[in-house]
């Protein structure tokens, strides 16, 4: 299995706010292959989100290297990383981060503004239908339920056919049914050859993962499988 995401000895520290440096991540290594669903689990403050942001090239590590599809993110400029993300990475966040002035359809199509996606309208409609949002396509996001919002966010993350899907507590605000639908969406993406890195503190959310990495105080608490 070829590695889509490679994290090698990642370390990251940040200011705690009272002048002390906190080691958010310390020597984390992880590899996620194509078709693999990896979950990172740990309590709040364990460094999960920091790890996810580093994996997506939104945050630069203090030490270590990150590569996606064999491309070293550390050697890219911020603009190059943005361009690279637009074609290769999808994000799903706990807070959905939908754009309030756009409809469901236009939210899903947002990645097409950043990157050239030839079949964006067709693909957006298919994704919307797939996630059960067909009747809501032209609704403003403010009128959606939380489950619908997260499904919209997931559809948006998949529009650019990413190689890597990064999900940060995607079920944190959802009821069981909607959580299940979102997890199923992530799982399907992996089954279709994508790589998924899910960070969560919820034990139930890791059921569908192929592997689980445990984090505690920025360190690997459990050995990653593979």
């Amino acid at each position, binding site marked *: 299995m070829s590695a889509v995401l490679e994290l090698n000895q990642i370390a990251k520290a940040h200011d705690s706010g009272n002048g002390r440096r906190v080691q958010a991540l310390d020597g984390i290594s992880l590899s996620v292959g194509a078709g693999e669903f990896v979950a990172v689990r740990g309590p709040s403050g364990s460094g999960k989100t920091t790890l996810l942001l580093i994996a997506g090239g*939104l945050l630069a590590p203090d030490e270590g290297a990150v590569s996606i599809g064999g491309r070293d993110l550390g050697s890219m400029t911020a603009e190059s990383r943005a361009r690279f*993300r*637009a074609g290769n990475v999808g994000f799903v*966040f706990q807070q959905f981060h939908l754009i*309030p*002035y756009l409809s469901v359809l*236009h939210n899903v199509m*947002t*990645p097409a503004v950043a990157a050239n996606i030839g079949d964006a309208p067709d693909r957006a409609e298919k994704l919307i239908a797939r996630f059960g949002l067909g009747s809501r396509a032209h609704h403003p996001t403010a009128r959606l339920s939380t489950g619908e919002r997260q499904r919209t966010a997931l559809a948006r993350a998949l529009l650019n056919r990413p190689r890597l899907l990064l999900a940060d507590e995607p079920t944190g605000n959802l009821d069981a049914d909607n959580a299940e639908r979102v997890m199923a969406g992530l799982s399907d993406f992996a089954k279709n050859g994508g790589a998924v890195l899910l960070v969560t503190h919820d034990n139930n959310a890791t059921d569908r993962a192929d592997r689980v990495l445990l984090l505690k105080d920025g360190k690997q608490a459990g050995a990653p499988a593979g």
Partner: protein
Amino acid sequence: MKIWGMIWREIAFRKLNFGLALFSVSAAVACLVGTLTLLQADERRTDRLLAEKEAEVAKAGAGLEDAIRRITKGLGFNVIILPEDQNLNEMHLEGSLSKQMPEEYVHRLAKSKIVTVNHLLPTVMKKLTWPETGLSVVLYGIRGEVPLQHRDPKKPLLDTVPEGTMNIGHHVSQKLGLRQGDETVLLDQKFSVGKVHGERGNIDDGTVWINLAKAQELLGMQNLIHAIQALECHCAGDRISQIRAEIAGILPGTQVVERGPPALARAEARDRARQSAEDALARAVASRRELRGQREAFAAVLAPLICVGAAVWIGFLMLGNVRERRAEIGILRAIGFRSSQILLLFLGKAVLFGIVGTVLGFVAGALAGASLGEMPVGLAWLQDPEAPVHFGLALSLAVALSVFAGWIPALSAARQDPALVLQEV
């Protein structure tokens, strides 16, 4: 969907933010355009008023000049061309002339290009005792003025005396008891009295005017005259020298005598009338110019203040917009939006309210300016050939102002750290 599609939708979503920015640009443009329109209206009104004033002054000046001309016309000819050998004492002391010159001289003068004199009047002038009455009189033989051929005809200073008619001075009338219409005999010729002149207090009171040809006949001076009377032109400088030089070139063997004071007074009076009118107009022009200068100075201070005020206002609005959209910026950066795209997302909006604000402000300013300036709007801008230039300038300025004001907020948005934002919200 493109970036501009997102901009339009964001504007539609946050109407108040866009409306306030739009108002700011519109107000700034309206103030500038309104001020320009007011100044333009003022300029047009000034031009109109000055034209009216100029016409009034010209009319009044012409009227005054004409009045003075008519008043001073009675002062008579002021240049006399005499034969060179004529003793001037005879003329001054006795009011009579004895030396003669051909009448043809006056025609020669009239055909010449002479410019220093006009109103040419050939005369005979002889002091004699009226045999039938025993009264000493000066006999004047006159005819109509001989027009200068290279000049427009002028109204004669002195009309001719019809044949068989005599005009008489006040003293003659008193002494002989002659009234207008009376019949009398002079040198065996019958005359009827055409005019009796009022008392003038000079030699005219003892003068009898008859037709030149008749006088020449009575005095045995066929085709001869004693003098050519003329009116000097109102030329600057040493007039009499110029006149003498010019006439000497045309009529050699003559002398020129100037009767100064009356004509001089006439010229000076006309000068003063013209000068007075021109001074009044110049004062009016200066006053309007000063007023316009004050308004322009005020506008020169007001315009930058309005621009700065609008820029600050837009800057704050844009900054508020950026803060409100922090999460949006974070997710867009995560999705893969580049800094330049984020910058465009905000500056594009600034360009839009710059353009729309210019159109609204231009119309509002033109309407307000025209209304305050009491000028038809169509006249103010639509018929102004420079209107497109002004609109282009206003548009460029407003868009530049909007982009400038939105630049720092937009730049702060483009430089936002998405990781930080996504961890915060």
